[in-house]
């Protein structure tokens, strides 16, 4: 893939395929330029025009990233950012996730943004789920999200929540298929595709924001907390009955263990957000104590020690659950 730059057009070329990135605006439309820099060469002012800087930027991008399989994505991102950055004299905040801060594409975007306006910022987030937590909602004019780095629907929704209404989320990928859970969301996006590179650009409106709130990490955590609490509530009377030696169906212990196994897995799915990171193993310990007690019953062994461990594990687990989720 190469970048072809002429006086009037910048495009990507791959074999016989061409993708037009930018065209130099014709004179009558130059009033669209609301930035302090001249959009095109001016008859009356000296200095570098935006168009000239665009040409230079895309040339630099090609120099720095032509070997990068995402090169086409970066070029198309530039195309999508371009109108947004020129849309007003307001300083723009662009957030990027999945691209290291010292990456050539980041440098090119940042240089171009600084050229347009000193206050423009490109913030490259480190690859961690906590990156999003540290950001306020609705603070970005654009969010660039590399899907292949972290193809999590919840994280994509979190990213949407960080974008201002009317701003854009750009999802980019070099994979052929989208994660199934993102298909519906991406169907609402504008799609740019060239060679192996694909971009989905979503303009954040009310409907998109609502979808993001419903499917983001916060909603996920609330839902998971409710599931854990429900299971703990189901389990507690069952365990009390077991410990009291009440007559229960034969499969009661296995059901209790199954509930704990589910609880353990749910706890592990929210592991990074737990205050007490030993909760999953507490669930496992209790499951083990129930199974050992079952072994004792099946084998008609002395149950004293098994009941003692079951009581201990049960107390430890429910105390920890209560502390974490109440």
């Amino acid at each position, binding site marked *: 893939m190469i970048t072809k730059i002429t006086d009037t057009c910048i495009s990507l070329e791959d074999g016989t395929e061409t993708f037009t990135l930018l065209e130099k605006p014709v004179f009558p439309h130059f009033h669209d330029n609301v930035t302090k820099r001249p959009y095109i060469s001016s008859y009356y002012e000296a200095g570098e025009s935006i168009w000239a800087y665009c040409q230079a930027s895309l040339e630099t991008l090609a120099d720095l990233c032509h070997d990068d399989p995402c090169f086409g994505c970066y070029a198309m991102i530039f195309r999508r950012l371009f109108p947004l950055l020129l849309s007003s004299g307001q300083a723009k905040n662009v957030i990027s996730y999945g691209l290291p801060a010292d990456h050539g594409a980041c440098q090119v975007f940042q240089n171009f943004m600084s050229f347009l306006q000193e206050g423009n910022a490109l913030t490259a987030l480190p690859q961690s789920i906590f990156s999003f937590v540290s950001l306020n909602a609705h603070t970005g004019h654009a969010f660039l999200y590399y899907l292949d780095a972290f193809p999590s629907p919840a994280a994509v929704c979190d990213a949407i929540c960080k974008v201002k209404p009317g701003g854009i989320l750009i999802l980019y990928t070099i994979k052929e298929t989208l994660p199934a859970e993102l298909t519906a969301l991406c169907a609402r996006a504008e799609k740019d595709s060239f060679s192996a590179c694909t971009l989905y650009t979503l303009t954040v409106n009310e409907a998109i924001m609502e979808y993001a709130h419903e499917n983001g990490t916060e909603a996920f955590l609330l839902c998971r907390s409710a599931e854990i609490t429900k299971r703990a509530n189901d389990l507690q009377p069952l365990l009390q009955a077991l410990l009291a030696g009440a007559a229960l169906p034969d499969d009661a212990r*296995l059901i209790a263990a199954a509930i704990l*196994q*589910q609880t353990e897995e749910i706890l592990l799915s929210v592991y990074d957000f737990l205050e007490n990171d030993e909760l*999953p193993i507490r669930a*496992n310990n209790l499951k083990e104590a129930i199974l050992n007690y079952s072994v004792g019953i*099946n084998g008609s*062994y002395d149950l004293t*020690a098994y009941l003692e461990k079951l009581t201990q594990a049960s107390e430890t687990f429910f105390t920890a659950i209560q502390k974490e989720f109440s």
Partner: protein
Amino acid sequence: MNRYKMCMIPALPLENVQLMKDRVVFPYACFRAFGESLRLVTKSTGNYPYLSYLEGAQLVTLPEEQPHMEAAVHYVSEHADEIDLLFLFGARGEYMELAPTYKALRPDGILYLKLDANIDWMSALPLFHKPFADFLQSCDIISCESRLLQTLLYKKWQRPVEYIPNGVYYPLYPATDDVRYEEKENIILTVGRLGDVQKNSLLLLYAYALAFPNLKESWELVMVGSITPEFQADYEDFCKRFPPLAPHVRLTGNIADKQELYRYYKKAKVFALSSCGEGGSPNVFSEAAVFGCSVITTGVDAAADMTDNGRVGRISPDLEDFDGYAKELTALCNDADYLARNFHEMRTYIKEYFDYERLADRLRMLIELQALKRRSS
């Protein structure tokens, strides 16, 4: 109850002696508890006389001309429909192809990995290497041998890891039935490869010397196992430095005859472990425990599990603390009431939590839970 066609494939070819170790004995206990058949699939390393102890198990010898694991993958490809439960032993790269091959052919089958690992080894695993991560991911049930390691793995892997300790298969130990505390003597016993770096045998030897003047009664130290030339020299040096102690310290050399070894366990009141690198509880611990020996151990990963957090044994945490180990040893040997009481406590504890027949029953239930999970998803 469902009965399973079981298969155990080691990462490296099995040796005869390993037929009596956890990698084979636990699958065998499972086979006896809920198996329809058990195949031990390996390239041959010679004769397998111990197979006679494993009635009903079938040894499948892989062809000589292929490397062990390549042949094992081929075997699984050909026989996956005859394997409902596949036992793997060790989180080893050798399994990276075998595990996904089995799961691809038998998504309904159960892949059980017994880690046989210590914390150092688990901390060094290449979890970012995708084929290795996929191998771990493909395992339906993973178990480790110490609670300390289990806690670490939950934090590191964020997936369920069961605690199934190295245990005892009682039918292999009929000699434990008639053990009586009254027949025991003041013997501190250790069993292992003496002089091996992992076994840290010098710690026990010199801690015994430090404890010796403080012991209320006369105690003998019996060290059973093959001896490295270095340790032989150390022992001779020890005898020269402490002539009064020399008659009380006995090195037996390797004892291949199990009955003779059991006679030592029967007679010893105290079993001493000085290792510095055990993952789970070593086989010799289980053997000593079923014979009612009180245990003193260094702070290996499974120390708390072996002693029920210090209830049925003593822990000297620091691997290089000769004084500390000697102090614990002295306290243990001087507490005759504890030793007598603990004879029963230890045997009960090991029976309740280390009996492979009971552990097999727990594994059977874990497999049932997997089946429930699959049905509900």
